């Protein structure tokens, strides 16, 4: 108990302990659990992975109506475009079955007995969450814009007065200082980026919600956006610094130039991985703590883990905001670096 209290006093240490514990469960559990799998016990690692990865159905609670089966959209050269409900992959006992020549294997749809590539455009749990998130963002910010139109020349009111300081903060504290005088062109993109990541992170914290911003596909697309923006706004000076770094002796250039070229790609890759890891790790921690109760079958552990979960959820709320801030800040920084005209180093 004393160790626990000490850990609570130092959130950093507490987070580290919890993280290592959760990592232990997340990655060691499968082997540990598989040995007891025969006894019908549940597999924590699988459960966690199931929760943080994408799925063709959205499971809210057990029972006949507890699962939302989402549409599967697949395209293959052989079969063409086909749309059907993911419900067809399950029989009444919730066992996987093949449907119409398609099988669901390791959460991947494959053509039965064929190696042909299938293009999968299914509306999965994350895609549906993405649609909801986009609709929410549109609704919120069009309302904010309406507030601005309504209150022209007047003080802000309602939802507008909540988001106006945040928009101003992003503009004045993140975008303007990092990009410089040409910031206005990039502002709509960066505002969309910030609120997409922020709202996405927060939505992921809702119990039962999908782990959208903790999915590597989502973060990869966002980071690619940063990469494209940085590359198309790169000035001559920016590219010169990468491919022919000035002020460096020729032999050193053989080292520096490859490093700089790698640097172009490590920036978006780091963005991709940072957001993905931060959000997924948070979910893993939360799920691990919740699962502790089911492993130990003890109400005492239940109380302890609930308190810890509450604590971690609060941290996660902070992380959700910080990650959105960091993603936007780094994107602004990279664009600002690309726009540098080279009057100094």
């Amino acid at each position, binding site marked *: 108990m004393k160790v626990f209290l000490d850990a609570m006093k130092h959130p950093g240490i507490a987070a580290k302990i919890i993280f290592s514990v959760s990592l232990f469960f997340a990655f060691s559990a499968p082997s540990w659990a598989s040995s007891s799998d025969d006894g019908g016990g549940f597999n924590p690692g699988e459960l966690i992975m199931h929760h943080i*990865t994408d799925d063709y159905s959205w499971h809210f609670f057990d029972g006949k109506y507890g699962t939302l089966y989402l549409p599967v959209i697949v395209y293959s050269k052989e079969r063409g475009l086909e749309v059907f409900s993911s419900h067809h992959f399950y029989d009444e006992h919730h066992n996987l079955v093949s449907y119409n020549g398609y099988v669901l294997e390791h959460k*991947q749809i494959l053509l039965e007995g064929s190696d042909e590539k299938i293009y999968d455009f299914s509306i999965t749990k994350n895609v549906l969450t*993405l649609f909801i998130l*986009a609709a929410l963002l549109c609704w919120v*910010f069009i309302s904010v814009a309406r507030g*601005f139109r309504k209150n022209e020349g007047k003080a802000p009111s309602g939802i507008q007065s909540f988001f106006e300081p945040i928009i101003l903060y992003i*503009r004045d504290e993140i975008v303007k200082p990092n990009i410089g005088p040409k910031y206005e062109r990039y502002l709509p993109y960066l505002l969309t980026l910030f609120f997409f990541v922020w709202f996405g992170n927060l939505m992921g914290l809702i119990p039962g919600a999908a782990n959208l911003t903790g999915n590597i596909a989502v973060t990869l697309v966002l980071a690619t956006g940063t990469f494209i923006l940085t590359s198309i706004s790169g000035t001559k000076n920016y590219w010169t610094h990468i491919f022919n770094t000035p002020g460096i002796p020729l032999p050193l250039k053989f080292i520096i130039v490859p490093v700089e070229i790698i640097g172009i790609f490590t920036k978006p890759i780091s963005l991709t991985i940072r957001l993905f890891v931060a959000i997924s790790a948070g979910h893993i921690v939360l799920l691990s703590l919740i699962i502790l109760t089911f492993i130990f079958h003890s109400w005492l552990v239940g109380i302890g883990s609930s308190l810890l979960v509450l604590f971690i959820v609060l941290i996660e709320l902070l992380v959700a905001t910080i990650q959105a801030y960091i993603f936007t800040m780094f994107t602004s920084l990279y664009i600002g670096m690309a726009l540098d005209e080279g009057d100094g180093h």
Partner: protein
Amino acid sequence: MELLTPGSGLLFWQIVVFVSLLLLLKTFAWQPILHSLKIREESIQEALDSAKEAKEEMSQLKAENEKLLQEARKERDKILKVANTVASKIKDEAKSAASGITDKMIEVARKEIESEKNAALQEVRNLVVSLSVEIAERLLQKALAEDVAQKELVDQYLKEKNLN
């Protein structure tokens, strides 16, 4: 759909949704919002600037007023000074004119007195002459008669004259 491999479907939808979200929000949210913010900031800046300008104008006006007041005061002082000098000049002039006139009058009076005196003296002289002549005439008349009586007469006359 593993943890570390990006799912192609989600990649596709993420690109489609994010790009359309970007375009939608840019047109219907960010542009009006940022535009309004800019307009508001500009109007605030303008109000601040005009307030500053008004303040400056006020202080300028005040300084001008002060200057005008100063000038008016100076003008007043000058006018007063001039008036004073004029007044004293007039006074002096009047005084000198008055004294000139009195001097003249005194002179005239003196001259008159002088002439009167002269006239009176002349008269007296004439009288003395005529008296002398008369006396001498009488003396001459008597002397022809008797010496003594003549003498007595002269004495008597002289006495008379003295008594007069």
